[in-house]
């Protein structure tokens, strides 16, 4: 597995865990000790912002790799 694939799978795992947090509110009793639901749910905001940051960084890393590949080809010819 390349580094990018590892990163993507890590990100997917993170996202899934967030989704599972969002779904277990169907019961009558309200669970308040949950990390994602404490402190005015600020952790949810952090999760969203970190996801956006991760997406942007991933994009920049991929661009960097693409350009490096092109540079290699240019060096050979």
């Amino acid at each position, binding site marked *: 597995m390349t580094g990018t694939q590892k990163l993507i799978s890590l990100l997917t795992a993170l996202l899934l865990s967030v989704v599972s947090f969002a779904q277990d509110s169907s019961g009558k009793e309200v669970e308040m000790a949950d990390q994602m639901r404490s402190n005015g749910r*600020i952790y949810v*905001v*952090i999760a969203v*912002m*970190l996801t956006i*940051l991760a997406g942007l*960084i991933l994009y*920049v*890393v991929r*661009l*960097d*790799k693409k*350009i*490096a590949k*092109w*540079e290699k080809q*240019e060096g050979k010819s």
Partner: protein
Amino acid sequence: MHKSWWKILSVLLLTYTFTAGLLLDVPHLPALQETIRNLYFHVCMWFCMMILFTVSVVNSVKYLRTNRIRYDIYARQYATVGIVFGVLGYATGTIWMSYTWADPNNPAAASFSAIAREPKLIGAAIALLIYLAYHVLRDSIPDLDRRARVSAVYNIFAYAMLFPTIWILPRLLPSLHPGREGNPALNFSDIDNRMRVVFYPAVLGWTLLGVWISTLKIRLNILKEKTLIHP
């Protein structure tokens, strides 16, 4: 990918900024309230812009001294990414001020006329327009060497104009924007120590991200230049 420690450092610092910036305790101030956390984002955009413009002008001077086209590419791309960060700073400032400066009791037009007269906003807009004109000027000259030389000279002028427009004039005129009395966010008496722990890493993280994007654009343009010469 060019693996560099500073790229990793940038990601780490930004991750730290996004978590610690929202979680750590901040001073409780009237009107600002939680929006004081924007210091880690909005103010960093301007810091990053200023640093990138400085790198750009240094490369312009280098071009004039050596006549190597490589420095012209550097100067241009750092200026471009600097403008992007400046526009982001402007946009985030717009959001921030609509919830702190604008008075909900007044009609929107009254708030707008007060905010539109802000010297800091006008100055920043002029500075960004001058840098946009740098790109218009560049692209209007077809000859490679002349374009590089004229735009390097213009870049020095644009950098010199940054100082009156964003540093001096806003401090001479009455303004709602904080930091008129000294150096905003750098002055040791007006920024809380709790915020400094996040603010300085945030500036470094954002700046490194800006440099990273600039180097990508530079490498791309150097490749383009090569394929133009030997197609």
